[in-house]
């Protein structure tokens, strides 16, 4: 399984903070393409969004980053702490 986390505006927009999905995606991009099929909000937030930030297992990642069973994948907007 994969753990998928959503933070901040993404969490609110997509209506969930986290979910578990089968580990059937080779890269983050494959996962994103699958999630985008859930509807307009998902497509906007995850595919048509230059500001999408990605982390895999707590490290900054990219669309081409490979993922495997047990990974934690997070999606969030640009950070604004400090």
């Amino acid at each position, binding site marked *: 399984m994969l753990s998928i*986390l959503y*933070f*901040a*505006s993404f969490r609110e927009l997509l209506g969930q903070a986290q979910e578990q999905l089968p580990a059937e995606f080779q890269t983050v991009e494959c996962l994103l393409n699958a999630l985008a099929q859930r509807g307009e909000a998902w497509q906007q937030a995850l595919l048509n969004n230059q*500001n999408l930030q990605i*982390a895999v297992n*707590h*490290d*900054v990642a990219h669309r081409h980053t490979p993922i495997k069973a047990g990974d934690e994948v*997070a999606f*969030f*907007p*640009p*950070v*604004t*702490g*400090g």
Partner: protein
Amino acid sequence: MVNPKPIFPHIRICEEDFDLSTEARNLRAGHKDIGAVVTFVGTVRDINEGDEVSVLELEHYPGMTEKALEKIRLQAHERWSLEASRIIHRIGKMYPCDQIVMVAVASRHRENAFHAAHFIMDYLKTNAPFWKKETLPDGFERWVDARVSDKEAESRWN
């Protein structure tokens, strides 16, 4: 909520406020050859984007945050000769004038401490997974936008 696993003893993510004197004193404890301590404290401004702000809520990504902050801290120790450093970032609800974040750096000479504290803050702003949501006096809530100036500030260290 104090960080339950102090894997990174120089990083603290918590709801509670902090005391600058205590933190500066703890930072220096056990390091005698310190001549300079630079601290940065970020506070809640009562105005943002021209609007009055009543409440600021800080969300973070537990686990990744600590790791990202420790990475930034270690980068600073690689670039400058430092004796000690510490980062505190609060989460949850805060109000105008409240302290949000502290970076404290101790070194033998001031130049290193000034640069390192500034570097850590610039990197924290663009690399640590925190998000601010502000509430206006009429109850309207909005997520704070990332600033281009923060990205520029970070890039000046490259």
